């Protein structure tokens, strides 16, 4: 078994085990079945924190070593982190509607989490806006380091301000106020999602490596065409030499249509279920949250696989 297959197998097995525990244990005294949403919401939020801490580490190491592998590492983690921040907010909204009674409210924890999402979306946008690879790596590394201030802000928001959102469960000052069945389900979820993170990171880093390889090949080709006078666009400031940007190869129109159709279907499904919110049973809410969590994860995995395939094909075409 190759190492990547091993991680994928371990992640799937761990998710299955975590699901069995989360759905198999008894009901919570106050919330009944609704408490089960905790076991997907909290692991998603944990991965958001973990991803952005990894982005910080990767950014710091890039600035120290100037090794682009660390830049790819940081950027990959930021994208995975944006995915799980979005998922944590979406699952939080489902849990909020079923327990608090509202999808959203202007509570400090909710607002600061949304701000964190937008700052890291900004990080991804910043990367796309800088064609010079070294400038892109350096600038996004600084943002990756600065962005970390939001994690304590988000995490301690429930302590610093009076909020609707409950206090932290795991790092509670009075110890974990949680009976054993719920603890085992929560920790099983945290372990399983951490393995999912490893799998997603390996794929995302592979994609980043292929993208950089494609850029290198295109640059090398241009250098051949232009002769020795032109240096590779890998170096900062080289854009003055007016290297023409190669247009990206046209994407398959059928794939785009298919992706749009899937997205439209998902949005419509979420809208229909949400509009039926008042008639959902407690198990219905749990099913809704778990479906959103795992459909989103599978969609992200499929999207990563598709991007890897397309980029690999482009690399092969150029080389």
């Amino acid at each position, binding site marked *: 078994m190759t190492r990547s297959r091993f991680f994928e197998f371990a992640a799937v097995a761990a998710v299955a085990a975590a699901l069995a525990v989360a759905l198999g244990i008894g009901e919570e005294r106050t*919330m009944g079945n609704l408490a089960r949403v905790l076991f997907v919401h909290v692991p998603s939020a944990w991965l958001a924190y973990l991803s952005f801490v990894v982005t910080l580490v990767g950014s710091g190491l890039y600035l120290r070593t100037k090794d682009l592998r660390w830049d790819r590492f940081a950027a990959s983690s930021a994208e995975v982190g944006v995915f799980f921040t979005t998922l944590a907010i979406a699952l939080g909204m489902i849990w909020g509607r079923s327990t608090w009674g509202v999808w959203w409210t202007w509570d400090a924890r909710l607002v600061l989490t949304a701000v964190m999402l937008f700052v890291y979306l900004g990080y991804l946008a910043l990367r796309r806006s800088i064609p010079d690879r070294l400038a892109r790596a350096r600038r996004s590394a600084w943002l990756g380091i600065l962005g970390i201030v939001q994690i304590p802000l988000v995490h301690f928001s429930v302590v610093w301000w009076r909020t609707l959102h409950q206090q932290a469960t795991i790092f509670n000052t009075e110890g974990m106020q949680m009976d*054993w069945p719920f603890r085992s389900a929560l920790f099983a979820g945290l372990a399983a999602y951490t393995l999912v993170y490893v799998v997603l990171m390996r794929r995302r880093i592979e994609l980043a490596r292929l993208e950089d390889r494609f850029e290198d090949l295109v640059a090398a080709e241009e250098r051949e065409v232009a002769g020795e006078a032109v240096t590779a666009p890998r170096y900062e400031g080289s854009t003055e030499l007016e290297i023409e940007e190669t247009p990206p190869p046209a994407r398959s129109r059928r794939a785009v249509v298919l992706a749009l159709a899937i997205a439209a279907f998902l949005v419509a499904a979420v809208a229909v279920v949400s509009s039926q919110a008042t008639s959902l049973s407690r198990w219905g809410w749990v099913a809704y949250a778990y479906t959103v969590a795992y459909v989103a994860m599978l969609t992200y995995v499929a999207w990563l696989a598709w991007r890897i395939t397309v980029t690999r094909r482009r690399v092969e075409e150029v080389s």
Partner: protein
Amino acid sequence: MRRYARFVIPALGLVAVLLGFLLFNLKDSLVFFRTPTEVVQEAQAGDGDRMRLGGQVVAGTIDETTDGVAFDVSDGTTTIAVIHTGAPQQLFQEGIGVVITGTWDGTMFHSDEMMVKHDEQYRTEDGGEYHPGDYPDSATG
């Protein structure tokens, strides 16, 4: 100095000012709801200002009314009588936390929006209480 650095320095300053403002200046006013004690002490009765009131539903005080529910909300020190218009949330019950929005007339709180606030405690149905140091079997006593 690089052109980019000229942009970073004011951006850093802006972030620092925002953070400082958020953490020190707004710390007291950024509350999501007021406690019954704060409402009784600070709120101007009858001025019609809408506010959020948060506390626990006192056991034995829930009465259904024609268009909603009446109950008492307490923070352990002060108790306020609440008349709520509209259906209560599905988790609404004795002893649970609520955050309600409405007006205070000096004796009663008239609310028309309710949110249930659940705490960070997760207990099994047979009433297991977790105490640090307990083992699984003794936790379900």
